[in-house]
């Protein structure tokens, strides 16, 4: 009803939520010996959604170790600054996507209300 972009926006927001969860995992384990930074491939996951816009929402994405080069003495390679940057970036992107979606919903709602005025 809201157009084909809605599926994509939903998938985009799903992936941003996953970024947020992965970042939360990395931040929670910033002091855990032996923990390695986790990540997932946002771009290729989203590209898959672009190629097949239907029925992608809710599909799981592969999470793997990022393999950062700077490993600390305790075998932990979490860079807190990297995680905080990713976190604020994904929060802003998410807010942006939510605003766009909201605009679409508002348009449909306006159309419904205007239509009602014409009939009455």
């Amino acid at each position, binding site marked *: 009803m809201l157009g084909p972009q809605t599926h994509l926006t939903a998938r985009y927001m799903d992936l941003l939520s996953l970024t*947020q969860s992965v970042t939360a995992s990395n931040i*929670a384990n910033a*002091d855990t010996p*032996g923990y390695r930074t986790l990540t997932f491939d946002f771009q290729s996951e989203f590209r898959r959604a672009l190629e097949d816009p239907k029925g992608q929402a809710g599909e799981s994405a592969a999470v793997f170790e990022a393999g950062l080069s700077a490993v600390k003495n305790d075998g932990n390679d979490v860079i807190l600054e990297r995680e905080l940057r990713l976190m604020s970036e994904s929060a802003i992107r998410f807010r942006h996507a939510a605003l766009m979606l909201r605009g679409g919903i508002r348009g449909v709602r306006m159309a419904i209300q205007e239509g009602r005025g014409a009939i009455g």
Partner: protein
Amino acid sequence: MSLFNAIDLSATGLAAQRARVEFLTQNIANAETTRTPEGGPYRRRSVIFESRSFATSRFQNTLNQVNVLNNGWFSAPFPGTSELQGVRVSGVVVDPSEPERRYMPEHPDADELGYVEFPPFSPVRDMVDLTASVRSYQANLSAIEAARDMINSTLELARG
């Protein structure tokens, strides 16, 4: 569901860092303790962190079951986020290093040579640990705030 997972995950981080701060403050408070229930001077304690696979919540499991029963009513996002790791305190270790001996013959805990055993206190080490711990705590808190903002902006959608 994924965003609520993120909040739960960060909460494990908060709990772990709080436990660490508790032991650090205990170490600082007992910097001069020469008598303990187990005998001898106080010994430094430090927490050991361990990452733990973050299982999906019971609520989410129920939702997934309902979803299967109803042939996919709604999408249950990211059912397989078990790769994500929470953190927990797996144990507390007692510092085995030798106590510091100070010559204080008038002290009630002095040995026959007049030496008193004090905890090997290193204020710099403890303060650095404390600062790092507080910083990690704040980072977890920021993560919760970010997830909360994201959830709120999703809720705004319903308002139109």
